[in-house]
């Protein structure tokens, strides 16, 4: 599905569905309908990414953008169903908002299309770094170009991105529910609150059935990443999904304790170690070439996946932990 072909009915209908679901999500009356419509939007967006020839982004959007974000929103919206001051927006305001939004979007689209249509300044060669990037990928030890870019050509970007996740996890640790933060709980929270109310047996059965499958799926995603779409981020998010399922269904008991914090540190520490190794062995930070580059990348991806899973789970626990 090369981007140059003209737009088929599938892409057009998906694009339309995206706009309509987005408008519905933005102007929904209740929080819960907003969250559910957001999930529908996420599904459409994942399919759209796949259809325009970006499978990695589609997978990431599905697992991270819709899966984990959906879980975060879903849980928070149900724990706080009614906003403190729910003002009924009138129909006129909704129409005005939609018109205004569409106007700004159209203006932005017009200027962007004009800018994109103009031939690239001066240099005649095709736009983008496709040629150079695909030529350089074999040296990175992985075949899939996206993973090659993420973990070798632009690995410093991915390291800083892990630092962003570390920052989010630190905020989660700071706002962990009191009973979790390991500090002396005054009078100790009631036992039931400690374990979280047990979900009905059918849910516990479903989770104990599905969790191993999703774990297997996460592992498969991780190792597929070197040859086809997949990789540490999607695998990490699938891992987080398992943790969230286990926590909410009461099958297991996760808390932001020393073990979780240890997992949070591991990923960035490993990445910096690889960076330092590149400096010591080669002559530049994060240098990763030669025959064992592939194995080091895979090992690093495993640790990154675990840390990404732990970070997203920590954020879920902090935002959805039972405090009341």
């Amino acid at each position: 599905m090369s981007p140059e072909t003209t737009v088929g009915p599938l892409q057009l209908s998906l694009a339309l569905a995206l706009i309509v679901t987005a408008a519905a999500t933005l102007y929904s009356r209740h929080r819960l309908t907003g969250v559910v419509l957001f999930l529908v939007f996420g599904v459409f967006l994942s399919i759209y990414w796949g259809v325009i020839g970006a499978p990695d982004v589609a997978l990431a959007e599905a697992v991270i953008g819709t899966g984990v974000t959906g879980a975060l929103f879903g849980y928070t919206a149900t724990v706080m169903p009614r906003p403190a001051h729910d003002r009924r927006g009138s129909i006129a305001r909704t129409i005005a908002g939609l018109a205004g939004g569409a106007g700004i979007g159209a203006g932005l689209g017009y200027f962007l299309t004009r800018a994109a249509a103009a031939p690239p300044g001066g240099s005649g060669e095709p736009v983008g770094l496709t040629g150079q990037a695909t030529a350089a990928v074999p040296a990175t030890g992985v075949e899939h170009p996206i993973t090659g870019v993420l973990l070798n050509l632009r690995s410093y970007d991915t390291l800083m991105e892990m630092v962003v996740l570390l920052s989010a996890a630190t905020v989660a640790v700071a706002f962990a529910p009191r009973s979790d933060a390991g500090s002396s709980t005054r009078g100790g929270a009631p036992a039931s609150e400690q374990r979280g109310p047990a979900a009905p047996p059918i849910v516990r059965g479903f989770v104990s059935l599905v969790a191993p499958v999703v774990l297997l799926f996460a592992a498969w995603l991780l190792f597929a990443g070197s040859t086809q779409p997949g990789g540490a981020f999607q695998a990490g998010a699938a891992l987080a999904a398992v943790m969230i399922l286990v926590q909410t269904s009461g099958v297991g008991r996760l808390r932001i304790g020393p073990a979780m914090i240890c997992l949070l540190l591991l990923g960035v520490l490993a990445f910096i170690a690889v960076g330092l190794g590149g400096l010591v062995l080669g002559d530049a930070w994060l240098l990763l070439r030669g025959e064992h580059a592939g194995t080091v990348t895979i090992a690093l991806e495993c640790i990154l996946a675990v840390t990404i899973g732990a970070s997203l789970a920590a954020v879920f626990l902090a935002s959805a932990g039972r405090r009341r």
Partner: protein
Amino acid sequence: MTLLADIVTVLAGLAGAGFFTAGTLGLLRFPDLRSRLHALAKADSLGLGFVSLAVLVQADSAGTAAKVVLVWLLALAAAATSAYLLAGEERP
């Protein structure tokens, strides 16, 4: 062989589409939550079964076929559990 496979795909696909439409009609027409859940859970799961069958026949390797069946089974389990949870919310 492929002609037979194509015929099965087309028929199964149409049947699947039919059941999905039935499920959606049920959602729109039925009066209360529980009957809607009933319509959705049953019809859509069966529709997905037919669509999986349609895809199964075209699968090139056993691995892909197994994955399609796995997708269907997981979808069944998820549909049943979420329907149970939603039904549980509205105790009469």
